[in-house]
Structure formats: structure tokens, C-alpha cells
């Protein structure tokens, strides 16, 4: 199972991000990692949470525009050049990365990167072929209640 990311649309003004975080906290949704892409007017909040389906549901109930997308979580050695090598695999195969960000915590000495591809299945296959370790959903968020 792919790792799923919860995304939300937030106005780029004080208090708006806080509101989203409060809605999730009130419903006991744990944010494992989070990143924000922003423009002058708005930001897109991207999160890996322990229960993305429930997160999506509660955001919707609070009129917060959100979506769920499959992303690819990849284990990378915590050594110089390893991210470069991974990107090189994608470049050679013409796999377009829409965006990426790093996990805050390391897993057993390794870094975890989240990638958003246009074509996630081709990316997964290419990486497995090259011997990369694709992190499964269960490894990140645990057993889903």
C-alpha cells in the first residue's frame, strides 16, 4: 500500500494554518511530518498523518478544502551523494518529480524522503529494480485503526 498524503488549502494569513492544525488535534490526528508550499496568497499544506482518511473527513466537515494523494516514501542512506543518486535514477528514466520533502525523523540511521510523481507506479517499479527500499504505509503510520 502506498503512503498517502493529506493536503489542505490555506490562505496565507495569520491564524489560518493554526485552524487546520487545531481541527486535526481536536480529532486526535497525529501529524508525522508536514511541509508547506506557499505563494503570496495561499499555501498548500502537505502532511503525512496517522489516519489520512479520518483527517480528510474532519477537514471536510470544517469546510477546509483538502485532498488525499498517493506519494512515494523512499529510504535513502544518510551519506553524501545518496539523494543525488536517487534523483539520477528518476532523471534517466524521465520520471518527473512534482515535488519532494524530507521526513523529520530518521529510521534506523537512514533518511526518508517523500516524492510526489505524476506516475507513481512507474517510479516505484524503477526504484525497486534498482534495489531501493520503498517504505510501506504500515511502516510509517503503524496499524490503521
Amino acid at each position, binding site marked *: 500500500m502506498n503512503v498517502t*498524503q493529506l493536503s489542505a488549502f490555506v*490562505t496565507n494569513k495569520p491564524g489560518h494554518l493554526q485552524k487546520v492544525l487545531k481541527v486535526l488535534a481536536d480529532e486526535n490526528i497525529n501529524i508525522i511530518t508536514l511541509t508547506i508550499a506557499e505563494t503570496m496568497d495561499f499555501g498548500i499544506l*502537505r502532511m503525512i498523518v496517522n489516519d489520512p482518511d479520518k483527517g480528510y473527513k474532519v477537514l471536510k466537515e470544517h*469546510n477546509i*478544502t483538502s*485532498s488525499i494523494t498517493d506519494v512515494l516514501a523512499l529510504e535513502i542512506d544518510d551519506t553524501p551523494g545518496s539523494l543525488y543518486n536517487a534523483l539520477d535514477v528518476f532523471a534517466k528514466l524521465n520520471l518527473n518529480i512534482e515535488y519532494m520533502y524530507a521526513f523529520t525523523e530518521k529510521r534506523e540511521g537512514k533518511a526518508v524522503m517523500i516524492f*510526489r510523481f505524476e506516475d507513481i507506479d512507474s517510479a516505484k517499479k524503477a526504484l525497486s529494480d534498482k534495489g531501493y527500499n520503498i517504505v510501506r504505509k504500515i511502516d510509517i503510520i503503524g496499524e490503521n485503526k
Partner: protein
Amino acid sequence: MFNKEIESMPVDKMKELQLERLKWSIRHAYDNVPFYKKKFEAAGFHPDQFKSLDDMKRVPFLTKQDMRDNYPYGLFAVPLNKVVRVHASSGTTGNATVVGYTKNDVNVFAEVVARSLVSYGVSENDVVQIAYGYGLFTGGLGLHYGSEKLGALTVPMSGGNTPRQLMLMQDFGTTVFCSTPSYALNIADFIEKNMPDFKIESTKLRIGVFGAEPWTEEMRAEIEQRLKIDAYDIYGLSEVIGPGVSAECKEKNGLHVFEDHFYVEIIDPDTGEVLPEGEKGEIVYTSLTKEAFPGIRYRSRDITRLYHDGCSCGRTLVKMDKVTGRSDDMLIIRGVNVFPSQIESVLMGFEGTEPHYQIVVDRKGSMDDIEVMVEVNEKIFSDEIKVMNNLSKNIADRFRSSLGISAKITLVEPQTIPRSEGKAVRVVDKRKGEA
């Protein structure tokens, strides 16, 4: 011409016909609708005093509010068992307005739509696909009966479902497409985005019939170029009959009013005074033949002018300018007249952007600034910045090409645009109060 005798009648003869019919229509309303009787009496007017077209200025106006107040059947002039159809418009505020048709009214409606189609060059050999909504709205059934009356092969597709519209267009050999102008642009966008191999030239499409919302010459140019058709305006109001009150001819320069059924005047919207031919003002309609729902001096709020220009098409019927908006909500932005309805029609071309938007006009220094705020719902939301930025950019481009104004597009969270009575407040003019 579908009805050569009427459509090319000498102007003087038409005036005679109108006078005779006006006498009947005013008397019909007075005798059969208590509302008119009361209203005429309050204004000190009696149908016996109506002797020449010049007496028209003594007849009181009918407003949209009068129609709402008489919901649903209060303005009908025949018993309900003579009424064979009703249509209703939802209106933007308050009650719906309901209009009724006798058998004869339905025939007149079909006749004026058939005349419109012929003036665009449609004939019985055409395949007419109707993508207006069928139902209480007059667009779908109006075009349908007109097309059948003409004898064209009529495809009652109704609105929406773009992939199916395109499939039918190809399979049925559609030559004439009828819809709102914003839906036509929507179709062009859909082809560009989802069907790169679809060649519009490979269809038999040649004529587009567009109406039900105001549209600009820029939109016409864009539709014609992208769909490879001739695009014509059909104009009408459900309060008067529906589409087919007036229609463009091949000149694409003004719409001929079918004035044997509808008497038109231009008034100053502030004083109610009748203006001479050629001057711009609010157009007022009086039905000449309608049985079920006579409309006497109905104030449309549409701004236009009337003129005779000896049109090359041979029609002697008076012409009106293409209506681009309503009198009560026009904005002037950097000297350009813009109607909220036009802004709406631009946004309607982008699935998911309506119904919640707001236009904020402000003055920065000596320049007018226009900002369009669009609420982001799930339909248009993406987790990719690129997609969101493209959406704003495409909307801004469409504003520039359709309306000739550059607007800043701001994407905002749902429920952030203030609502009054549950509806979004569409226009905020911060310049108000300045001289």
C-alpha cells in the same frame, strides 16, 4: 426569411400592425388581469384613451417585482384550462417568476425561434444539437420547438456531459450547436485538455447559436476561432417569451426584433421617459399577441439602443444592439464598461469556480484595480502549486481576452467570501463615495 411578409414589411405598415395589436393587448390585460386594471386606474389611464403609439408613454410600467408579487398565476389573462405550458425563472433574489403559454403562444414562440434560426442560415437540412437545459428554463424547449417548426433534425441533448456532447456531435453529424456562450468555451477547453486528437474540423459543425447570458465580441471571436463556426446571438427573456425576442442576422451587427409580436421602447432608466430612436437606455417590452401572460411595458433592465439601418439581409425589422449587461449593476473599470454577469460568464467557463466568487474594485492612485476572489473547492484544488497557479493564470488570461481588463485573481478558502442571505456578495466597489 422564415416569414418574408412580416420580416420585410415596410416600416409604416409594421407601425400600423403594432398599433392595432397594442390596442388589443392592452385591452386584454385590462379586462382579464385585476392587477393591470388596478395599476392602470391608479395611473389615471384607461384603454379607451389609447389611440396612437404616442399614447404608450401614459401606460404604467410592469416590473420584475410585480411578477414576483403575483406568484404564481396572478398575471395570467386566461383560465388555467387554456394554459398548456409554464416556464419559470429562479431569479437571483426572492420568488421565482412564472410565465404561462396558451397553444397559440407556444406556436408564436416556435415561430420566432424558427425565424431566428433561418436568419443565421439554418435550414431544414441541418442537424441541430440543443445543449441548453430542458425544463422550467425557456432555453431548451424554446430552441427545440423552433428547430422542429423549421423542420430541422433536432437533437434534444440538454446541457452538460461534454464527452457525450462531442460524441453525438460526431456520430449524428451535428451542424448547428445551441448553448450558452460560456458552455461553448468550456467545450473548447475540454477538447484542448482531454482530447488532443479530436479535430473540430472533422465534424460538420458550422453554426453556433448562443444566448441566455450576456457575452462580448471578444467571446464571439474566441468561440468562432476555437470551434471553427459562425457564432450568432439569440436574445430573449422568459418574462417576454423566452429566446427569440430578437436575433442577429448574417451581418452579426445588431439583433432584429420580431416586432410584430413584441413592441419595444427605449427609456431613460432614471426618469422613465421614452428616448428617441438611436439613443441608449433601458429596453421596455410590450407583448402584442400573447394570450396567457400579457406583458405591458415590462422593464427589462437591459441596456441597449434601437435603430433602423437598412440591413443588407433585407429585414426591415428594427435592430437592437447586443445586450452586454443589466442597467443596475454596471461597473466602469479603467473606462471599460463591465457587468458582473460578464465576469460570471468568464468564470463559468472554468468548472468549479462558480458559484462563489467576489469582485473587488478599488482605486490605487489614479488607477482602478480589479481583484477577483475565487473560493477554492475540492473540484479545483490540487496539492501541486503549479496546477493552482495555472488556474489563476488561465482565469486572468480569459479576463483579458474576453473583457479587455487585467484582473488579479486571488484564490481563497471556502466560506471566506461574505454572504448575505446565504448568497455570496458578488461585487464590492471600494471606490464608492468618491467623486
